[in-house]
């Protein structure tokens, strides 16, 4: 009896996770520009993976696989934002943004470059610069 209930709960988690993953896919297709698409690639995507992992963990409770699932979920949450940030940062610097769809565009494409000593644009802002000179 308990087992059946747990199965139903696990199925619920798996289905919900699949719906989230589907929504992430739909977002990737329908969102207007790179950065918006990455929103779809992070939030619903990570939530979907976590839900599917919880469902799997309930179904596989008691086996060592559960710990791998926990680790996988943890690393998802740590690494997905990093890759999304790197891609969106490059996309923004290369101006792959639908500006007409921005409600507010603070600082313009110069972004934070105004605050820094680097000139804006396609300068390699990542190049090591002398920390002693700035600030």
């Amino acid at each position, binding site marked *: 009896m308990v087992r059946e209930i747990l199965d139903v709960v696990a199925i619920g988690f798996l289905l919900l996770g699949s*719906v*989230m993953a589907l*929504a*992430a896919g*739909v*977002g990737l297709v*329908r*969102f*207007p520009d790179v*950065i*918006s698409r*990455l*929103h*779809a690639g*992070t*939030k*619903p995507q*990570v*939530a*979907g993976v*976590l839900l599917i992992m919880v469902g799997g963990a309930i179904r596989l409770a008691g086996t*060592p*696989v559960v*710990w*791998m699932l*926990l*680790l996988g979920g943890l690393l998802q*949450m*740590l690494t*997905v*934002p*990093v890759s*999304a*940030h790197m891609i*969106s*940062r490059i996309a*923004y610097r290369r101006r792959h*943004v*639908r500006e007409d*769809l*921005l*409600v*507010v*565009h*603070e*600082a313009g494409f110069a*972004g*934070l470059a105004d*605050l*820094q000593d680097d000139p804006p644009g396609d300068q390699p802002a990542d190049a090591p610069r002398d920390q002693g000179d*700035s*600030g």
Partner: protein
Amino acid sequence: MSPDALVGRGTRQLPVIAWLVLIWVLLWGSFSWANVLSGLVAAVVVTVAFPLPGVTEHARFRPLAVLSFLGFFLRDLAVSSVQVAWAAARPGPPVRSAVIVVELRTDSDLLLTLIAETLSLVPGSMVLDIDRMHRTMLVHVLPVTDEADVERQRADVLVVEERVVRAFGSSREIAALDGPDGPPAEAAADDAGRNR
């Protein structure tokens, strides 16, 4: 290198070693002393062979605040996922977004990293760029429909900062939250001209 410096480095690496042992044990999939000990050996070898600069200088671990942070994090993850999913699936014109500049009050590498990670997962925001010197982030937020939404998102960013700092920050960082404009050292130099 003096013995003192070695000891100092050793204690700074302790959180890293603990983290590596945890991952090692999780990867083996079962808890046993053999796993923990072999993981300890591997972690020490890794940290000695590839030492990293310490980042935990201004960090503490406050269990209650961490629990509340995790609770809010999971809730926000659910809410923002549904939000973005709805924005993706709903019929109508393409979703609108905004790019905003947010000045934070935290001045710690580790805390800024945690804040940026959290912001990218919740609440509808993604970090585009960080100016470490000025503790400023360029944040892309979605979905927004009007200026009021933008202000709400900006407030959300600061709320996330506050939760992270209260969970992992030192008392100095927490004091900076309540202070007028963060830790004085750098801000004072920058604001020398416009005295408030």
